[in-house]
């Protein structure tokens, strides 16, 4: 399950960065880039919190 979540998170990150490269190359326009980034954001935040470790040094000490 964790691996599936990680794969979806990775897709979220790819949808965040790849569209900008396509805009740079003139393959897609800015509007599509904006929309793909929204999808990327949703995918990332729907999955990453469940597998990323997050305790800080201060929390561990307390």
């Amino acid at each position: 399950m964790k691996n599936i979540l990680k794969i979806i998170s990775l897709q979220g990150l790819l949808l965040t960065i790849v569209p900008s490269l396509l805009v740079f190359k003139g393959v897609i326009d800015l509007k599509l880039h904006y929309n793909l980034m929204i999808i990327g954001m949703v995918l990332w935040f729907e999955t990453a919190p469940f597998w990323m470790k997050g305790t800080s040094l201060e929390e561990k000490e307390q």
Partner: protein
Amino acid sequence: MSTGQKSTLIERLDALYEYEREPVTKDKLHGWKTFIAMFSGEHIAGTEFVLGPLMVMHGVSAKDFFLGLLVGNFLAVLSWALFCAPVGVKTRLTIYWQLRKICGPYLMVAYSAFYAIILCLLAGAMVNVAVTSVSIPFHIPNPDFVAGDMIPTVPWMLLAVVVGAVIAILAVLGFEKIAHFSKVCAPWMVLIFFAGAIAVLADLGVSSIGEFWSVANEKIFTGIPTGANTKYTFWHVMGFAWLCNATQHIGMADITIFRYAKKWTQGFASAFGMYLGHYGAWVCSGILCAAYLAAGNTNPQPGNIALFGAGFAGAVCVVIAGWTTANPTLYRAGLAFQVTTPNWKRWKVTFAAGVFMIITACIPAVNANLDRIVAYYGLFFMPLGAFIFIDLWIFPKIGLIKDYAEKAKLMISWPALLAWIGALLFSVFMYGKDNYGWLSKLLEGRQPEWLANIKLDLMLLIAPEWVVAVTLYLLFCIIQQKIGKSKVQYREAGQ
């Protein structure tokens, strides 16, 4: 203030940090991965959307910007790795206890109070960043300081109150979950910066990587300041990149973090924060700012430029970046303020700090001069880190007693107090003689030629101030320990 009240204040401060009084034990140490993740996350914050554009507005040239950041961030990494981390690993104590040993409890209280104030200011700057994005769907214009807006509109201030209140409530509830959330956000936020910048490059006329440098010179980092901004050069950029976290590295605040490091070499993990956040993110936000202005817009606020380059996701990124950094900052400010408010509960203190934060957020001049404020902040706290450094490494080699204030049971170390004030006055004088009207007027025709020829900006004072601080502290400690009567007191204390 009576002696009883004084001891209560010190006892209260000690009690607040009691749990971290003992050095960190070996089982709690962390490896490289923890420090790389921590630095990468902490140095990609809402304020990165402000600092990159500020450099553009100050007319820095492309060569000066890229080289200045390269060298300045390298110096910052070296400061963490060679100054801060070795002290953290050697003592395994927090900055609080280390300063208490060297400077005495009274100076530590002063440090806490000043630190709380600056943390509120920084939290306010982050709220301001978040509101520049929240205001967009409500069609509320962001204040334009360059155009003369000294205060925002009433609706904008109401938004700041709402955003600030939410942050204050969350800070009262504790910041553990938000700390986790901010770590989740970090990889995504880095990509938002890069994606936004790459997407607008075509608008600036870059159609291949080979064209980037010429466009960067002609359209992004043009070398021409905007409005009344002063011109920044390589030295300003380098100095600022080094100085902006001076309190943390050369000022030693991060020994609190590095006491968990297995080896001092883990100080080099700071390179991930510097080169991703203070290099990559500043370059990207600078590009976004230039593209936004080139498209005929004015007032390049964080929310506007992020929306321009990355759409809705960019605007969300600005809100999250502002919120996740303002929250722990306000929490820590509340913690520091608590020592001076004996009968107040934590929630009251945090809300009081929150009110200060909201007021700061409503002053456009704060973010418009964030580089200057951060520079003052670095120069203000840095001397204390210099004292810690030489007290630990140099004093035993030259026959002086380290941790003298603790061993002699002094409430305040006068060498530390005078050297701190002396170093600050030196910096204020060297900068102010050419930049503060009243001081320039006072010194008109009275400076020797050699002094008049020295023109130092705030950003260039980090190294001179460190040298002055160390020299004064060393001199005063020699007087205190070798010549003065304090050594007698020290012996009488049974040490």
